[in-house]
């Protein structure tokens, strides 16, 4: 009974990954890109999107070599009990770190733009209530909820159409001015925006129709890439390079700049629609981490564990004190995310040398 509640389909995996990627990345991506490579951010997004698609393909290949095993079991096969265990611990810590940081940066968005007087601690608690509720029931429900991201993406696209007449595509010219240097420099912000694909390696055993996993995982990355490219294009041509560098959350500023006929302050409505979807990007990380901890420590399904986990998450997420402080932490997360991805690729290569437990399925 308990096991069935974690089963997801490949199509749901796609929604989950899109929601994690988009939710984490979208608020800060355009301005981060503008600082490092000017108005050519969209080229970098496109290129890194393609690279990450390749990485996702490799991860799925690795997972396919071990039928029904997650990265935790694979580590034990490849590196033995102790080294594998240590690596697993590091992975869980990385995930947990991501949960706290995403929660914190998300809270910051609300705090800075919508609810200035509400303490961030209260916001944390409120954001985690639905997430907690769903995580208690299992991964299946989190992924079902995560499908709402398509709705939010649709809403965003409508917003782009609404502001279309105010876009100035001159801001994008000359194309590729920043050159190779710009692409190199945009490595960190791009990768940070795309992070989230790595959860495939953990929840892969729960996918019911694994034949389609590859297709849908790559599909999720394609959706994210296209969405990010449009996002960067629109924000750059709306604000211009210099203005973009100065704004922290361009997407919200964009919604604020749009003058709706009756409703004043479009951004409040925008955040209202975005809030659930973004909460789910935390929810995705949150439930995957909770799932990993339960799996590694062999915990039973008990409320107390979830509460303890939530409380620690809330406390940790309150550690960063300012936006610049968050940036430092973000860099750490990006670096560990990159290391994790490289590690997964290495595991794939290593599995050809050390063949214990390899059980490829069609």
């Amino acid at each position, binding site marked *: 009974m308990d096991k069935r509640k974690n089963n997801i389909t490949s199509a749901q995996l796609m929604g989950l990954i899109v929601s994690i990627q988009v939710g984490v990345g979208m608020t800060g991506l355009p301005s981060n890109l503008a600082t490092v490579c000017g108005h050519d951010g969209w080229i970098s997004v496109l290129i890194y999107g393609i690279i990450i698609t390749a990485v996702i393909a490799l991860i799925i290949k690795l997972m396919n070599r071990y039928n029904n095993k997650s990265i935790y079991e694979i580590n034990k096969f490849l590196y033995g009990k102790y080294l594998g265990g240590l690596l697993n611990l590091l992975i869980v810590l990385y995930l947990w770190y991501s949960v706290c940081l995403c929660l914190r940066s998300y809270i910051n968005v609300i705090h800075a733009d919508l609810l200035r007087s509400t303490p961030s601690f209260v916001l944390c608690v409120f954001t985690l209530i639905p997430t907690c*509720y769903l995580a208690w029931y299992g991964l299946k429900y989190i992924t079902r909820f995560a499908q709402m991201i398509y709705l939010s993406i649709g809403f965003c696209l409508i917003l782009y159409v609404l502001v279309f007449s105010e876009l100035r595509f001159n801001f994008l010219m000359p194309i590729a001015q920043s050159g190779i240097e710009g692409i190199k420099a945009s490595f960190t912000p791009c990768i940070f925006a795309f992070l989230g694909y790595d959860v495939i390696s953990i929840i892969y055993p729960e996918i019911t129709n694994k034949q389609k996993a590859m297709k849908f995982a790559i599909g999720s990355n394609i959706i994210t890439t296209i969405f990010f490219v449009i996002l960067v294009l629109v924000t750059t041509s709306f604000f211009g390079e210099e203005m973009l560098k100065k704004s922290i959350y361009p997407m919200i500023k964009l919604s604020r700049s749009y003058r709706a006929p009756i409703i004043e302050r479009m951004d409040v409505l925008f955040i209202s629609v975005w809030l659930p979807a973004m909460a789910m990007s935390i929810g995705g990380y949150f439930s995957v981490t909770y799932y990993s901890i339960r799996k590694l420590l062999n915990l039973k399904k008990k409320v107390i564990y979830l509460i303890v986990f939530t409380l620690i998450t809330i406390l940790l997420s309150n550690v960063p004190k300012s936006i610049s402080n968050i940036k430092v932490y973000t860099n750490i997360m990006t670096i560990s995310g990159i290391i994790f991805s490289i590690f997964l690729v290495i595991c794939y290569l290593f599995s050809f040398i050390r063949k214990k437990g390899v059980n490829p399925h069609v």
Partner: protein
Amino acid sequence: MAEDINTDVNLYNDYEKNFFIIDETLKDCPDIIRRQVILNSGKKGCFFFVQGLCDLDLFQRDFMTPLLNLQKLDSEEIKYLPNKLPVAGLTFPIVIDKIIQDILAGNAVFICDGLNTGISCTLKKYEKRTIEEPDGEKSIRGDHDGFIEDMATNIATIRRKLKTPNLKFKNFTVGNISHQTVNVAYLENIANPNILQIISDKITQLDSDSFIAIGYLEQIIADHPNSIFPQYLATERPDKAIAGLLEGRFVIMLQETSFVMIAPVTYFAFTQAPEDYSTHWVGATYLRMLRTLATLIAFFLPGMYIALLSFHYYMIPLHLLVQLAQSRAKVPFPPVIEAFMVEFMIEMVREASIRLPSFITSSISIVGGLVIGQTAIQAGIVSDLMVIVIAASAIAGFTMPTYDLGISIRITKYVIMITSSIFGILGVIIPMVMVLAHLIVLDSLGEPYFQPIAPFKFSDLKDTYIRAPIRYLKKRPDIAKPLDKERGKKNG
């Protein structure tokens, strides 16, 4: 003492002992008639039946007279008895307990000397209501018949509309005291046997004295008994039951109640009315959209209004804000108190008018709605905009075709009103997300409750917010996991 007598035994050869046991068990039941006779063959015998449940004319003509006229009645002769008695339902119970059950169920039972079996005959006739349109579920373009309290009539109603041998009824007996019959109707070849198994398991595990209404059963066998959302669709309308059966669902019928329960259902089943299918699809789609909008208004409008008024007044357009400020200027209370006062008033009028005769109801609504509402605004207790908002949400709540969902919506609305007054727009959004999360978590007989939205099923969407033309509704919805997914062609 009746309790000391063991009735769970076969009939004895001794007639006097048999009679004593049955008589003693049924003592102080003046409605149970014991008619002692001496047969032609000289043997003693006795007829038992319940006055008021048994058709006396038929009993005398077709059961009593032929039996009395028999030349011979013994265990050899009883084999030919079905040919000699011109009655439809004839059984030969041998356990005393079974005989007593038969008597109480309304059969006429005969025991006699020298026979170690009883003769039980179904000659039921009792008063029942005529078939009429259920008051709670009116329909404009639908049928005007409804289920009644008699199960046999209800089964006949369904059978009349679905003339197929595939229509099956699985029979259970529940209630330790009431011994009611529960029938689960389904269409073989369409309904999923796994779900039938789940229902059977749930019903056989029931342990209660009696089930007075189908709601008792519903609350006990619900997957999530603590959820405020209804997980089974209770209805009195045969057309809803038939539509459910044709989609591979199960109809749970309880004896002596006019409501039947349809399961498994999705959330959207509660927002659909049967006449959606009998009008043109454009009109039906319009009505569906209207109800969807009404649901959103009923859920969120008061909460949203309170949040905007208390914290986010900068979101309100300036022209409106001036009006609002003027109407609010006289009111001494914070918006949430104001809202709850109006809401409380409406709830009281509603509750009062349900129980009262209809000619008083109209005066109640005039006093409650017009007089109190108008004077409350003039007295400066509530602002007029607040009355509009609350009344709009209350009326929006009435558009739901089912009563159960209305209560869920109201309770959720109150929660949102309270949270929004404390946390502003966050207090609207977080409950909104929670409601959504809750709907996603819910199951109806193990099938996802919020089905075509999450988990997303594109092909089922054409019968949720919109109602596609009938010719495109060729597939049965996936919620009941039907064995036969296509309508038409193979099965009629």
